[in-house]
């Protein structure tokens, strides 16, 4: 039942064995080891001196460096440190997909990985999807045109998942789209117009 692009999030949160993890996950873990091994500031008990890590990554095309508490989740880093509040927290267990962002071009659930795991990566959030002049990405435009959103809360994650979905399945039929969106919950739309939007967005992205 797991959406292949989002398997990392769902699998780790639920503690369920789910087969192979996508490659980006193992790749993004490496830099955190580097940070930990090279850090000389990490001393004492955890409660007394929270472990901090240094990050260097690209967010929406902008170079970002920061030092954060090692426990910081990627979604917390995006929302609280970078003020990119378009990425939402809907369940904090990797189930709802509202926090989906692109990590090196692949959809991941940002509530379900540490900011440190994104070290060295290129992160794209909903704020980075439209063109610099404000022109909507074809998938954003398709969601508007097809009424693929109502309250808007799941929308950023849904759109980011859809972009990744189309990259992997440029000619997906309805069944495939529904299966691939299984990791993103929407309580408003009944998904029908989201499916239309993904189809329309896919056609526009192919042009």
């Amino acid at each position, binding site marked *: 039942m797991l959406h292949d692009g989002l398997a990392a999030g769902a699998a780790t949160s639920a503690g369920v064995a789910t087969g192979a993890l996508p490659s980006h996950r193992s790749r993004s873990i490496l830099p955190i080891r580097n940070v930990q091994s090279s850090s000389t500031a990490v001393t004492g008990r955890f409660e007394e001196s929270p472990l901090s890590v240094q990050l260097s990554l690209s967010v929406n095309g902008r170079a970002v460096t920061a030092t954060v508490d090692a426990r910081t989740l990627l979604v917390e880093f995006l929302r609280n440190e970078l003020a990119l509040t378009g990425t939402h927290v809907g369940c904090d267990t990797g189930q709802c997909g509202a926090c989906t962002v692109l990590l090196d071009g692949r959809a991941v659930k940002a509530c379900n990985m540490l900011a440190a795991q994104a070290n060295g990566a290129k992160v794209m959030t909903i704020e980075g999807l439209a063109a610099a002049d404000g022109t909507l990405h074809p998938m954003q435009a398709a969601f508007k045109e097809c009424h693929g959103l109502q309250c808007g809360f799941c929308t950023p994650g849904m759109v980011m998942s859809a972009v990744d979905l189309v990259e992997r399945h440029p000619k997906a039929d309805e069944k495939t789209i529904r299966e691939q969106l299984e990791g993103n919950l929407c309580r*408003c739309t009944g998904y029908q117009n989201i499916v239309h939007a993904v189809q329309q967005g896919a056609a526009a992205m192919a042009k």
Partner: protein
Amino acid sequence: MGANDQSLIGQSVRRKEDVRFLTGVGQYTDDVVHPHQTYAYFLRSPHAHAKIRNIDTAKAKAAPGVVGVFTGADLDGVNGLPCGWLITGTDGKPMNEPPHPVLAQGKVRHVGDQVALVVADSVLQAKDAAESIDVDYEVLPSVVSCVDALKAGAPQIHEQAPGNKCYTWALGDKGAVDAAFAKAAHVTKLDIVNNRLIPNAIEPRAAVASYSRADDSYTLYVANQHPHVERLLMTAFVLGLPESKLRVIAPDVGGGFGSKIFLYAEETALVWASKRVNRPIKWAAERSESFLTDAHGRDHVTHAELALDKDGKFLAMRVQSTVNMGAYLSTFASSVPTILYATLLAGQYTTPAIHAEVTASFTNTAPVDAYRGAGRPEATFVVERLVHQAGVDMKMAQDEIRRRNFIRTFPYATPVALTYDTGNYDATLDEAMKMADVAGFAARKAEAAKRGKLRGLGYSTYIEACGLAPSNVAGALGARAGLYEAGQVRVNPTGSVTVFTGSHSHGQGHETTFAQVVAGRLGIDIGNVEVIHGDTGRIPFGMGTYGSRSLAVGGTAIVKALDKVIAKGKKIAAHLLEAAEADIEFADGKFTVAGTDRSKAFAEISLAAYVPHNYPLGTLEPGLEETAFYDPTNFTYPAGSHICEVEIDPETGVVEVVAFTACDDFGNVINPMIVEGQVHGGVAQGIGQALLERCVYDAETGQLLTGSYMDYAMPRADDLPSFKVGTKVTPCTHNPLGAKGCGEAGAIGAPAAMMNAVHDALLASGVTRIDMPASPHRVWAALQAARA
């Protein structure tokens, strides 16, 4: 859309609000950041029922980053949370209304009950500190079933509610019903469980409270569906403040479905504590807290009977329901299984005598209150399951038994207190049957049988009552609030318009629909209309959004304000055009002297109103801004026909919804795209209830077993088909828009349609009862039992 475009009405205008949501710049409550803000964490009860012997907060108060730790003992002068609807029982006494404390007072009554509030510089510090609070509990036996709670010897939850009873309430003429049953040719009987649901808006509840020492006032950002009522209840009933000292802002809200109507303990505690710590406090529920503490929905256990004559005419209906209030009375809990339930038991039918008796009990579970449809899905499920079963019993086609009993003369007074203004139930049924290709069903069923699958078709011809009103009637029935709506139209000097509405949009698209209404009526560009909602500091008053009321009630208030704007505009135009006011006509955005080509554009009139150099100052105030309050004379009555087709794999018990058709009558439609979207979402929640969703508490411990998305089965994209949606129109007769409301229809009609389809599919196998949700396990087990 160009100016002067009356044709805006009925057009699928793309939504004005979408770009901010699609680009990530919407502002939900958890996105609000105040300087020096702190973070709240609520320590909650791990037990379903326990006495609190002692709470030791000393360690927590000394923990790093902590700025405040509060328990029930600290809330001096803070009242409990009120219930907004008084139900009077069959014994003539008011319902039992036990206290609903903001923080536990000596006892906890459900898992998740809030025990202490910790405020700290960070969420993690607040959580860490909460962990160090030592609560000495004396665990008590608990009860979670609404039926078990009423049994002798059940654990007593509130002193003020002996036997855990909230009320027994009844509606209808019992004598007439008994007499009709005595002479019936056939009686159909059913036992029905309406499964408990958890609303699960994808945005968890959240609040940010701040206090200003400068003027001793508070500001609360909160994910809420009706900020004025939130303010009224919190200030007047709980905190003892003047309303003017609290501004409530419900910014972008990520879905509500009823669960964000209510006044909750958390935001109340935050407002109170913000003065004590003198810093803003933010709280956002974790999903597990949402599962534990958002008001749940449904949870009825019902026995229902339908009496028929030999021709299949309904003679009478008898309904007995036991319903779950949870541990405390939530804001509108008492009205949902009574006023919003029993009144709908006539459905679309001429059943001349109906009697319903409802007993509500307290249990050690989260409070239960309105969830999308609120009482009406439960009523529709009772009626439509009975009608389906009667058709089976009497070997009548499902459309035929319905048609024999349809109401066709309006207005129609039901035996359960409502008067339907208008409708055409044959029209929606005919259209739905065409759309669903009912004629081709037999062939599809035969084809499915060749593949070893069981196909079934189910109908639900539902009615709902929306836009609850008028206030005086509701007041006589126990409502403790008014049921009107307010709208304010501010025409700015250069002709743009700002509309302030007491309705609240949390996905419904009011910024677009209301702008269509305003732009269409004023003949101005829709881009020049801005709709503002969700802020007690900017909007005169409001009763918010619930019960599919926003367009019919809130939209009408705006129309009434527009009428005043146009009337004043005519006075100004008459002055400028040196004509009699009676000769001024307004159309296509122009004020014209009748029969001439002399006219003034809307923006010329607005400019004159604000720059009154050539203006009748002696008789007319400057400015162009009008407010209207609209209290409807009746409910509206959306109705429709839903037809569901399922295919069941008897080997696995898996039910697949292969087709779902909805043909609804919502009265006049302003934006068909938005209406269809509302139907899609409602149907998805209805199918969710019938196929997937079920809130389960452990009967022994009272622990919530379905407390995460791994355990509570939310409908996902691959659980649902694409729906076929259509409309037929009989305009509402008592509001100027002719609108009835569309928000809940899907959730009301769909569960019965789907479960009727499931029972139809299983009929030949001898299965007679499947409760919601029709999970593979239940269906498979029923098939095995029927074979044995």
